[in-house]
């Protein structure tokens, strides 16, 4: 290990001083605790969601689920190498798309409902057109976006022509789908980028990574606007608050947290009664409920403002890998290693 010379030691000291100052600043701003301030709010009832539909069709673990913009269809990706687009109301499979590689880690549905994207251990992101079929009758593959040096961990459509991806090579890429080229490509984190969440106004997005930090980015820039520390292990999932001013995170360190952008710090710290890491999170339409899927086969929910556990949703028989809340807030879809997808309403 190289020895420290004078310059390095001076820099290290400066860094530590600055970090201490930042922390002191944070504490100055933290003149109240979220739970106390909301103490006089009415208590919110225990979560009353019940499984309304159980979508059966996958024959291997389901890794990821995402709702469409119409709040009725969702797409799921599973290790059996299929993408299935479901109509959550009737439980019918609208389309089954066979994939070239079975190792799907993440799926995304365009808000318009016209495209789906998936990717995983094949180090590629593949985009399919839902409305056009190709010669074999499956959805037409529009683009195969390759060039990643790590697995694809998450992808989200900005609109019908742009998709943003985060991957295991610690980068974020924005692709133009018409040209099939990368528009933006930058190193984002010090570890795999695990999850991306877009703000409601699509101007900013938040990423979570295994380096235990979450960063806030502007869609136009390549430098992060803010970094949030606080988690003690990998951040597994991030989800924007519908108001666009905060986001929730779920992590391997068995907690979920609420970070606020304006005060630049962690507001809420939510722990489950049990002891299992979280794999995914979502916020309800008004932001009052925070739901997180966990390794102990259940989905926990909390009152975000009062920082209180409001119940668990038990129905899965193996770990819950991903949850997605419908854009109009009517339902929650969850998928699990027990090969089923459930719609709660």
């Amino acid at each position: 290990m190289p020895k420290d010379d004078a310059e390095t030691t001076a820099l290290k000291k400066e860094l530590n001083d600055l970090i201490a100052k930042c922390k002191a600043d944070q504490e100055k701003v933290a003149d109240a605790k979220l739970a106390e301030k909301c103490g006089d709010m009415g208590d919110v009832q225990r979560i009353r969601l019940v499984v309304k539909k159980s979508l059966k069709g996958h024959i291997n673990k389901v890794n990821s689920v995402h709702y469409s913009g119409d709040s009725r269809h969702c797409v799921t990706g599973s290790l059996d190498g299929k993408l299935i687009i479901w109509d959550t109301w009737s439980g019918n499979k609208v389309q089954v798309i066979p994939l070239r590689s079975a190792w799907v880690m993440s799926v995304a549905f365009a808000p318009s409902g016209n495209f789906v994207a998936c990717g995983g251990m094949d180090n590629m992101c593949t985009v399919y057109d839902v409305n056009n079929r190709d010669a074999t009758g499956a959805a037409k593959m529009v683009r195969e976006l390759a060039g990643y040096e790590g697995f694809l961990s998450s992808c989200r459509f900005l609109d019908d022509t742009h998709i943003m991806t985060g991957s295991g090579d610690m980068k974020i890429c924005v692709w133009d789908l018409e040209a099939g080229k990368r528009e933006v490509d930058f190193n984002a984190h010090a570890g795999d980028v695990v999850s991306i969440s877009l703000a409601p106004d699509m101007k900013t997005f938040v990423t979570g990574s295994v380096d235990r930090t979450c960063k806030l980015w502007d869609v136009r820039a390549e430098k992060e606007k803010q970094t949030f520390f606080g988690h003690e292990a990998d951040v597994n999932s991030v989800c924007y608050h519908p108001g666009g001013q905060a986001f929730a995170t779920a992590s391997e360190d068995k907690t979920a947290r609420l970070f606020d952008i304006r005060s630049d710090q962690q507001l809420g710290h939510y722990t489950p009664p049990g002891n299992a890491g979280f794999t995914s999170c979502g916020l309800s339409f008004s932001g009052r409920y925070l739901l997180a899927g966990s390794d102990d086969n259940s989905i926990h929910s909390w009152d975000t403002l009062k920082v209180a556990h409001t119940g668990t949703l038990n129905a899965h028989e193996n770990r819950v890998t991903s949850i997605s809340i419908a854009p109009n807030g009517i339902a929650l879809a969850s998928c699990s290693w027990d090969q089923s997808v459930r719609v709660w309403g």
Partner: protein
Amino acid sequence: MVTMNSNEKAAPKACQQGSSRDVTKSSKEEKENEKKERKERENLIANLPPSVQALMATIPSPEESPNYLAYKKMEAIIEKMQDENTGVPVRTVKSFMSKIPSVFTGSELVAWLGRHLNLEDSWEALHLSHLLAAHGYLFPIDDHCLTVKNDNTYYRFQTPYFWPSNQWEPENTDYAVYLCKRTMQNKARLELADYEAESLARLQKMFSRKWEFIFMQAEAQSKVDKKRDKLERKVLDSQERAFWDLHRPMPGCVNTTELDPKKLSRINALKQKRLQQCQELIMQHNLKNNPIVTITNAQESEEEIQKNSEIVKENGECSRTELATLEDDKPSIESQIEAAKRQVAVLKARLERRNVRVSKVAEMFISYCEQYGEYDAFLTPPEWPNPWISDTTELWDQEKQCKEPLPLRRVRRWSFSLRELLRDPPGREHFAKFLSKEFSGENLKFWLAVQDLKALPICRVASCAKDIWKEFLDSNAPSPVNIDAASRELTRVRVESGKPDRYCFDQAQAHVYHLMKSDSYSRYLRSEMYKDILNGSKKKTSVKGIRSIVSFTGRKETSSN
């Protein structure tokens, strides 16, 4: 009750090795070998320099595998269950012509769990026993599916040798040997299941070259098995079968030993990196401590002298490589310094940020939640009935429709913020109508055009940007938009620079948005048009409408009176 003694442990181990040694001897030899290996490893490690030892400590050990903690907890429960006095009663059952050794029933297991763990709900004990089975700690003696039923079916404990916490990861060759051995046994009840037959065929194709070797191993193992006592053999067979049911589950069952591939790939990558680093450090350490010795014996032959000079050269080169490593050190210091400087800059920027106080932020959250609470389906039931309960798709159809009359809630939402108004297509149209009446419609048109520009593919961005400029911002534009001179100049430079990108109108767009928000939007909310649509939706969608007509006629009567 049959206890798990060392004989049973050693026997399967001997089987795995495929040689028919004496059972007790093999166990002793095994233990001695293990001790020797451990001592050797410890000596090796002690000889390594402390930096390497520290690094090796960071290599993720098997104990850090994510499932390990869960296994430890399950084993604690299992040990309590196997206690002679207070555990689950295990016995040998007599049936038809044979005895079934060391079994317990499903209902006994569930009852014991419920009692000893103080479980309130009856289904919890069943669920927990199912999970214990799914992870391979107990198994049904008749079935391949690892689950527990709360009735009189029989179950058996798995021997600690086969516990998943031993980090097994068995290979396909082992599975092939096992399936082959099964086919050699003549009992009808030990026949292969369909999926096992398929796996065997597949493995035969895979290992066609070394199939003889596998066959020999299977033969040897079945010979050893035949020598054993009948009851003991039954138990061991069932335990081995359960082990394979866990690691090669039947179709329809989940494999609980699998790790999340993301975590696994990361742990493996980390191990590789650390091992590489250890090796490099060891090399450096050796170079430092063991300089190459030059031979100085005068009686050496010509070859040796040449070798000497080569060695000297090598030494010189070596020192060069040492220099090289030193030089490598320097860039790493520099890169460290650079990284530190970058961090300093980021932290300084962070200090200069104006942050909002948490109390204020909390108030804003509270007001947001209260405002949107009635739109949150998890808090208040939505206007349209739950589609799964009422079996209609009214909820989604109603959301899509844009004709009047619109529901009151939806129209009220437009008053929350300009963003909400513009988000809803009928809201946009209504606002556009209002603006055209006030002759300020071009602001909204400009804003919408720039939004569309942002969503275009790259090839069309340039031409669209030019069109927008011509239409809205040029000196003789047909729909001139009112923005300040500075933004206009900035935008002009970017558009006419030859490569307009999709964000060149951002500043102008922000300015227009602010204008709309402060000026037009507030007037819209107070306008007659908005009030009409608000009332219009009220009357047509609720019974209150009829009542208001009734009261109107009532008032008429009183006034006439």
